[in-house]
């Protein structure tokens, strides 16, 4: 671990990760924040490689950079532009910084002071096979529970995000109001939507 | 062969529904603009004339009045009828719109409004179609691009042609009240000398 190449890799990746994370705090635009998040994720994937956990590194890139960041960008696109400033919450900023400082000092002190009894054997090789086997053999129960959890999350997310009928009516009414030019429709007292909401019915019915 | 539907027969149908709304003037059916909609509706709905296809809708500026011309066609009986509606008021010509009866009239009426300035009451979206909103005047009117001295541009006559059938015969053009957006002629207007130079 001591040759020059490894040092170069570790320090550059550490800088990339911490730099990306701190830029998230500073950047004004939320989309910039997500892109800095992606950069720090890639940094962390590199750090996994330096720890020779290459299966985890590739999974990290595949899931975090490939899916979760795009999911966040979609969420940002679906919410209005007015909300996109990445502004801090000034009045809770102060105490938050205090708490974070406290946590940081305690964790750093623990990290540096205790004797972890670190031992340096050769790293695992061919993690993919070992992890796969242990998932099936040793950790079969958590594996199944994880599967159930993922399906539940999937169904929950769809059920939440889907527009059911009266929402669609409100949406259709506000669209019609937009086209006719008067102000936006007050979502509460929409008795019978001017446009019969037949378009989304197909979805609701299926 | 597409027969031309007999104007008098059409007049009877219209008069049956809207007495006095139609008259035939040398073989052409003229309809009163005020009751235009129900007379055309009677022509469209009566089984005997069955004029369901609005072929063509345009206007002609007859200098003293506007004429809105409709060509209605029956596809099953294969005959065509030409209808004219005369609008005398040049300042604010208006004719009831047929978009209620024929959906095809939408664009054609907008075109006539754009190029002639004839308002179609009841048209849902009467805007200029080709020209932009701020365009001064209506191009297809005869007095648009009017030469000073009320002489219409174009072809007074041909060099090798004899003098007597020069056209239009000077002074024959009826004098019309000056339109507000006509270019105002400088100095006093003498029609007489104008014609000597040009012939």
């Amino acid at each position, binding site marked *: 671990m001591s*040759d*020059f*190449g490894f040092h170069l890799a570790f320090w550059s990746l550490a800088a990339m990760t911490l730099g990306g994370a701190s830029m998230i705090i500073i950047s004004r*635009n939320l*989309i*910039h924040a997500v*892109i800095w998040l*992606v950069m720090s994720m890639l940094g962390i994937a590199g750090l996994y490689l330096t720890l020779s956990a*290459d*299966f985890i590194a*590739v*999974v990290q*890139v*595949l899931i975090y*950079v*490939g*899916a979760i*960041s*795009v999911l966040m*960008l*979609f969420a940002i*696109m679906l919410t209005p532009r007015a909300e996109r400033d990445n502004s801090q919450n000034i009045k809770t900023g102060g105490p938050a910084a205090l708490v974070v400082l406290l946590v940081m000092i305690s964790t750093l002190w623990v990290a540096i002071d205790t004797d972890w009894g670190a031992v340096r054997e050769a790293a695992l090789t*061919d993690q*993919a096979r070992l992890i796969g086997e242990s998932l099936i053999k040793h950790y079969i129960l958590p594996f199944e529970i994880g599967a159930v959890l993922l399906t539940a999350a999937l169904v929950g997310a769809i059920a939440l995000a889907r527009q059911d009928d009266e929402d669609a009516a409100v949406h259709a009414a506000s669209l019609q109001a937009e086209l006719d030019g008067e102000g936006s429709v007050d979502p509460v007292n929409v008795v019978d939507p001017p446009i019969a909401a037949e378009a989304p019915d197909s979805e609701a019915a299926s | 062969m597409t027969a031309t539907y007999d104007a008098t027969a059409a007049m009877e149908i219209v008069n049956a529904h809207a007495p006095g709304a139609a008259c035939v003037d040398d073989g052409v059916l003229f309809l009163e603009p005020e009751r235009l909609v129900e007379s055309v509706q009677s022509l469209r709905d009566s089984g005997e004339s069955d004029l*369901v*296809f609005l072929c063509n809708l345009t206007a002609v500026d007859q200098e003293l009045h506007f004429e809105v011309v409709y060509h209605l066609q*029956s*596809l*099953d*009986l*294969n005959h065509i009828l030409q209808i004219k509606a005369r609008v005398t008021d040049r300042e604010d010509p208006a004719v009831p719109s047929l978009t209620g009866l024929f959906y095809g009239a939408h664009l054609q009426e907008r075109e006539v409004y754009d190029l002639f300035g004839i308002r179609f009451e009841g048209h849902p979206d009467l805007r200029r179609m080709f020209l932009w909103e701020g365009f001064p005047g209506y191009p297809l009117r005869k007095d648009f691009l009017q030469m000073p001295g009320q002489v219409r541009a174009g072809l007074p006559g041909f060099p090798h042609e004899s003098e007597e059938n020069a056209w239009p015969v000077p002074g024959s053009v009826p004098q019309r009240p000056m339109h507000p957006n006509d270019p105002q002629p400088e100095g006093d207007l003498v029609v007489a000398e104008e014609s000597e130079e040009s012939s």
Partner: protein
Amino acid sequence: MTDLAQLGNVLGAWYDFRDLNNLQRLITEWIAEWGPDWLASIVTGVLGALGILAVVGPTLLILIWVERKVISRFQQRYGPNRVGPKGLLQPVADAVKLILKEQLAPRAADKLIFFLPPVLIFVPGILIWGVLPFGPRMSVADLNVGVLFLLAVSGTAVLVIFMAGWSSNNKYALFGAMRAVAMSISYEVPMVLALLTLVVFSGTMSVNGIVEWQQQEDVIFILLFPLSAIAFFFAASAELNRTPADISEAESEIVAGYHTEYSGMRFGLFYAVELGNTLVVSGFIATFFLGGWWLWGLDQWVPSWIILLVKTGAVYFLLIWTRGTLPRLRIDQLMSFCWKALVPATLLFVVVAFVERTLLISEGWDTTVALPIMAVFNIALTLGAIMLFARVARPAPLRRPARIRMAGSDIGGLRAAREVASRREEPQFQVGGD
């Protein structure tokens, strides 16, 4: 020992061009003698990268010419033949023209995110090459998670496309970006499942391992899993935004999709990377399903990377062929095809692969006998699945045939229309429908 191999031994390994790896080993040994050890590892990395760029660079230029010539042949015209002999310098002329063109940027564009994509889009394009094995030991990085690496890197390309589309502040670009992201995410699922059948069967996730398994069993995967091959081909062409799934840059609908606002060399980069991705994806299709650098023993004679390039060329021609002739599908049709057809089909084949794998391993069937039977069964299953899909999943308007009748004597309006419609005899022209 064939005489060619003897020649290699006589003249020393580095003459033997069948396996370029010898060359690289020779160089690193020479450096290891006098230099520090870290220098050797860096030099091998650099050599690998240079090798890749040496392969990608010229082939890109040639590919631009090949694609334009082949498509022009489809369209009854000559294609570029003005610049250089038979138009060969046309790509160079294009590149020079693009470099000289002014680099425009829309006024309200998000500057930082607008300038990054043309550079960042190259990263996944070149990274993917690292895992492609050109020969038994000739791949830049023989990761044992190669297949997963391929999917992860092609996943990041989606992010760059979104950045390009969103930042150019143009509605067409935004449409293109949203469509590209929605489509690539949903087509990653069938891609993963198609590769899962291969990984399950060959037992290893390293790309070279899959090729070696095919060599060892003397069978190519397209015979064993034809539906996975078709699914992977279609998912890859959707990932690359190529017809029939090029809706993210559908010029007839949204002008040029996510790279509408890019001009000059920036557009050139997008275009080059698109071609580079197509080449590397056809390379992977050749490696996974057609046996990569191995061809029933021929690779003893012919250098392995030539075999791979020939197979890649064949798959690339197939991609050009679909691009030249097929019309484009709508975004909702693409999505429903992916989720209602490709995903169930590939899931079915993952189950089939598991069952056959257990038969081979735990039951201990003899592979030379078992594999042909399984191949026949899989091919029959594929044809059955395709027939079932063609029969079941036709949208309503497509069930009835489109019919044209001749009006004959009754010309007229609605009454004549009813007469023509009510006629008994067979319509003059009928197409489509089941």
